[in-house]
């Protein structure tokens, strides 16, 4: 059995009496690709917020490998090796595509360490590779604000790939994409498999089928079921709670 990359142990948050996430535990192994499923309000995004430090948990712990990162500040968790893609694509809109990736390639977070010019030759090579991977090499000198929605999503994925964290959290990476764009996104995500541990929150079942190994289903802030696509599709509790009687279609 592989080593655990991310361990979540009894994580809960209490918003003045409402438990958006209630005692969630799961172990994600090194190199695994895990999909988080759940209806609206099941606590998927809140769980991401708790893991990445955006929201402070009220109980439970989060471990990145052996490091306890519970309730650290966001940038420290990011530096510890956890990257996140937001549901609403977030890139640096007034910078060029290349500049966006250069910022992500910056290895030293301090202000004073960055009072020099240029990001270095290794960063340039890294950025060139990522531009190829996300298919934006021809757009490298465009201002990010002028990219299409799909391209913006890919650029944000590119930021994560450049940042090169051990664990990548993707919050609905195909939201608002056409079928062709969704397919291209699944190619990019599949390309990352093995090199990173990946957790994906997703609604689009076509996309889930293209990428999923293991699925964890959340319901009302708790883990409802865990298994591969076939197991989840046939699990009666999941069908009842989320998929309806028709199953995954």
């Amino acid at each position, binding site marked *: 059995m592989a080593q655990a990359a991310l361990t979540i142990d009894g994580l809960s948050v209490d918003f003045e009496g409402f438990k958006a996430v209630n005692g969630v535990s799961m172990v994600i192994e090194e190199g695994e690709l895990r999909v988080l499923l759940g209806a609206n309000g099941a606590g998927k995004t809140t769980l991401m917020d708790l893991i990445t430090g955006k929201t402070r948990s009220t109980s439970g712990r989060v471990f990145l490998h052996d490091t306890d990162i519970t309730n650290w500040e966001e940038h420290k968790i990011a530096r510890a090796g956890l990257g996140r893609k*937001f549901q609403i694509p977030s*890139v*640096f809109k007034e*910078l060029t595509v290349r500049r966006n990736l250069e910022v992500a390639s910056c290895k030293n977070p301090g*202000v*004073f360490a*960055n*009072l020099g010019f240029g990001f270095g030759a290794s960063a340039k090579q890294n950025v060139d590779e990522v531009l190829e991977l996300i298919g934006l090499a021809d757009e490298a000198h465009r201002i990010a604000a002028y990219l299409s*929605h799909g391209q913006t999503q890919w650029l944000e994925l590119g930021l994560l790939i450049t940042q090169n964290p051990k664990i990548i959290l993707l919050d609905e990476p195909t939201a608002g994409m056409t079928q062709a764009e969704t397919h291209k996104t699944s190619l990019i995500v599949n390309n990352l498999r093995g090199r990173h541990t990946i957790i994906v929150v997703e609604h689009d079942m076509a996309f889930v089928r293209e990428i999923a190994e293991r699925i964890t289903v959340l319901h009302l802030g708790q883990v409802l079921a865990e298994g591969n696509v076939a197991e989840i599709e046939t699990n009666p509790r999941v069908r009842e709670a989320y998929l309806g009687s028709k199953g995954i279609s």
Partner: protein
Amino acid sequence: MSAKRRIEWAVYALFVVAIMIAPLIMEPFWLNRVAKYLVYGMLGVAVALSWGYAGILNLGQGLFFGAGAYMLAMSLKLASPTSLQQGSDRPVPDFMLWNAEPGAPTELCCINKASFLWLPFQNQWFGTAIGLILPVATAAVLDTILFRKRISGVFVSIITLALVLLVRLVVIDAQPVTNGFNGLTDLGWFKVLGLEFDPYIVPTYYLVAVSLSLVLVGARLLVDTRAGIILQAVRDDQNRARYLGFDVPAYQTFFFCVSAAIAGFAGMLYVVVSEFASPTFMDLTFSITMVVWAAVGGRSSILGACIGAILINTISATVSETEGFAEAWKAIIGLIFVLVVLYLPRGLGGLAHDLVDRIVTRKPASRELRVSDPSSQLAE
């Protein structure tokens, strides 16, 4: 270096040469005026850094300008000949004695309860140093609190605005040590190695012109460093930058401190060329006027904001002294502001950047064409 970058540096060089040769064609009266406008140009640089590059509108920039101005003015007040003629062996500001209680000692230590604060200012270099240190320290404390607490956008503007007005009130109220409404007047001259900077001589103009050139080039280089680029990334999307591992408040605070240092430095130079410091530096209108300069010149362009400040002040001086416009000049400045905001939202600097883009790429309006990419309609 790209063609665009080369053109940009050429424009900077042109500007520096222009302000360096100005004394050859100008009489001393205008030279002193232009020196003041160059100081305003430096304030434009400070606003461009905080508003254009950090993306946070500081409506209290006058606080740092005022702090720098008062600190140096206190030293220069003590250097004034009248301060030596107050019946004491050591210099004493005249206004302090006018307001002193009958029978009070005439020594700086104990004229009134707070007059001892003036003691270290007997050394001109103390005033000069504290004129930089005080704005930076204030900015560091204030902005660390604001940005760590993640107070955003308009609330920072409101807090900084309130703060500058508060300090203005305190300065007016502390009349025994600050001379209140009247401010500090009748100042001595700034001295370096025996050279006295009389505001109407050419070396004083060059003190300002060289300072501005250094600040301009320094600020332009600073926003080109990795830290400067990361700051712009923070401006565009704070959360994204945070999740890439950057300590966002540290970047914002650092650049606000640089901006405060430039404003404080400008305040000191202003005192040298105008020979007074007054609470009007901390008026609401002055801090807002700085923002207007930067908006007209282009807040995301260091040189643009600087030229905007110089241009507007030159225009207002010229217009307000033209007989027909003597009453209407404020309306004319207001009209220019409205037109720029409506038709040139990125200011003159933005216009210049677009023009250079066209010359370099020779593909006019290519940006608008690219935006109509069919997949972009998915954005909503």
